[in-house]
């Protein structure tokens, strides 16, 4: 039996075009041995949730540097729950002011990483918190 692979979707919700971070992250996850689905920019929360379910990922990572995270991130969690996929973990990163953390955590975002977060710390978080589901 082969090993159970962790599958992660990296997605950029909204109109934000800052995709460097998302690309860096996709490569870093690949190098950590994960399978990464990258959706590209300009995704609606609906598209992200639908794709996450079709791809059967364990984790969705949302990247947003434009300031629209307050509405977009919670919406993705909500849509996954509505579609019976609340077990898919959602984390986020980008330009996110400290004062927004509580709102996002309350909405079900499990972790937030801002500029300066090391790639190692992100991979460590994934390895500790994400177990491929049966």
């Amino acid at each position, binding site marked *: *039996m082969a*090993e159970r692979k962790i599958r992660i979707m990296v997605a950029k919700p909204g109109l934000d075009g800052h995709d460097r971070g998302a690309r860096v992250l996709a490569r870093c996850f*690949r190098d950590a041995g*994960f399978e*990464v*689905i*990258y959706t590209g920019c300009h995704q609606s929360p609906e598209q992200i949730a639908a794709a996450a379910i079709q791809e059967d990922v364990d984790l969705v990572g949302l990247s947003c540097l434009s300031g629209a995270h307050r509405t977009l991130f919670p919406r993705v969690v909500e849509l996954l729950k509505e579609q019976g996929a609340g077990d898919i973990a959602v984390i986020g990163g980008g330009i996110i002011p400290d004062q927004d953390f509580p709102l996002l955590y309350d909405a079900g975002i499990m972790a937030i990483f801002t500029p300066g977060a090391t790639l190692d710390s992100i991979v460590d978080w994934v390895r500790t918190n994400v177990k*491929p589901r049966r």
Partner: protein
Amino acid sequence: MAEESEEMDKLRKIREGDVRTASRLIRNLEDDLPEAKSAIKRIFALTGRAHVIGITGSPGAGKSTLVDALISSFRKKEKTVGVLAVDPTSPFTGGAILGDRIRMQRHAEDPGVFVRSLATRGALGGLSKAVGDAVHVLDVMGKEIIMVETVGTGQQEVEIINHSHTVVVVLVPGMGDEIQAIKAGIMEIADIFVINKADRDGATQLYSELTAMLNMVPEFTGGWRPPIIRIGNVFDSGPFGESMEELAAAIAEHYRRLVEKDLLGDRIRRKTLVEINEALRDAILEPILKDLTESGEMDRIAGRLLRKESDPYTIAEEVARRCLK
């Protein structure tokens, strides 16, 4: 017993088109879980309704973009569509970036479309080992059209022929000595050629070289001469939008021809032979290898070979005599 009914429930959901359940089964197939195999046993009899289209060609040729445009075209005809898009696994880390989906995301919310990315996980033929069974899953979900996009291929990766009814080979001009490269293998498997990015220099030359090459083929199976379709830019809706429809029509025509000339059976047979081959390998070879490794016998064999006390053929015959009674 409870397990039994749980499994039946899952299979019912898949037949009703439930994305979550189907996607999870594909995941289990990729991870080679025994329960996934038993699901295939149960659905195998229901398979064989979809038209399976393989899309192959060199890296960056525009395969995913083409699949995206074909999805739109099939959806206009109200066909349901499943897509399996394969990208390479890094041999160094075992990870993969599956990027084909980027081109198809506009269809993400369409319930008539199911796109699933697969990593090769070490398979060499341009596909993933799970692809054959994943096609079965989409088929049982009721997808009428299934498109399988291979990794960017060279000359050797022709596995797609074993898994599809219609093979579309995507070429682009200006990538060096094109024809030389494709003659070797990819050439023989094409049912339809697409010259993509035909607005570029070299497209006319590629077209005439390809035509010349086809002219040299003495006889085509079933009388089907692979058409060459030139697509300038799939993002244009103008004249090249028409060539997308030409491609869709050629695909449909090829399928009709397969059915008419009773050739579909040959294609399906090809897949079943590959399937039984793999299944036998799993059922016979794998357990023997596992046994030899775990009992330490493999080390002893390696030692004998190193000391030239025996040779691989003799040892294989010994093992076969012992294990295959």
